[in-house]
């Protein structure tokens, strides 16, 4: 059916066809470029440590381990089990340090303080230190993300 004096001319139709198609083509080329430029860095799901390195820890003692590229904190509880935390301040991602005399974690960047359980007690940090699960399996000490469950 021919429409006389249409506002949407043939030229506009052709232009929009080409433009729309070009847009589709561009999108499928931009996607791999974006994927390349923004690759995801994943934290490890679990880290295997040698238990012998930590078995001599006294209750209340704190040691570090490598959680991917972040510092991990292992603390021996009074009953001999391990508490594991990610030693990264929840305020702006600085690494925290353990002050054994005051039994607290201290973040030097903005003076944030966490108690020995990792709970934020003073300063800007909004949340406690992130917890991880630690379990001893034979000769190995596994540290996992909470909820990951023990793997066989």
């Amino acid at each position, binding site marked *: *059916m021919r429409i006389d004096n249409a506002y949407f*001319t043939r*030229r506009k139709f*052709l*232009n929009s*066809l*080409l433009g*729309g*198609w*070009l847009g*589709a*083509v561009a*999108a*499928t080329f931009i*996607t*791999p470029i974006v*994927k390349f430029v923004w690759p995801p860095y*994943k*934290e*490890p*799901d*679990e*880290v*295997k*440590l*040698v238990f012998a*390195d*930590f078995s001599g820890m006294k209750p209340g003692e704190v*040691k*570090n*381990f*490598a*959680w*991917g*590229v*972040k*510092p*991990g904190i*292992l603390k021996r509880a009074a009953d001999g089990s391990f508490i594991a935390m990610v*030693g990264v301040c929840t305020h702006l991602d600085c*690494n*925290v*340090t*353990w002050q054994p005399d005051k039994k607290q974690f201290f973040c030097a960047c903005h003076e944030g303080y966490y108690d020995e359980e990792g709970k934020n007690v003073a300063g800007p940090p909004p949340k406690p230190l992130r917890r991880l699960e630690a379990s001893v399996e034979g000769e190995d000490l596994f540290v996992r993300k909470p909820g990951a469950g023990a793997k066989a």
Partner: protein
Amino acid sequence: MRAPRILFWLVTAALVLGPLAAAAQQAGTPPEAKDKAQVEAAAAPAAPAQEAKPAPAPPAAKKPAPKAEVKRTEPIVPAYTGIKEKTAVIVFFVWLWFAIGVLIYFLRQWIKESDRIYWAKYYEPEESPRKDNPMAPTLGD
């Protein structure tokens, strides 16, 4: 006519979603490195269980003892990790040429139109053969 417009949108939708689906399938499976003699972990994007040594009091995790400088002696040849990746590349290749074909089709139409306009001196009404025609369309169409 309505039919070509519907057809156009259907085809465009299929051709946009198709390669996106193929790309999603292919996500993160790069070609394998064949025959690498190296101490470091192989290049899998999944997180392997790592051997980590404990560090003394400083909060920053200290790297383990410096790794032995073992040089790679075998070449890395790009190869497909599986049939999925190979299929994704073939799909991309076919879609690439189809998209180019469609674009060239549209461009040829556009070239013909712009040539026609040029030869008909559309933008120079004084020199155009339609200069005496009061019904001739003007600029601003």
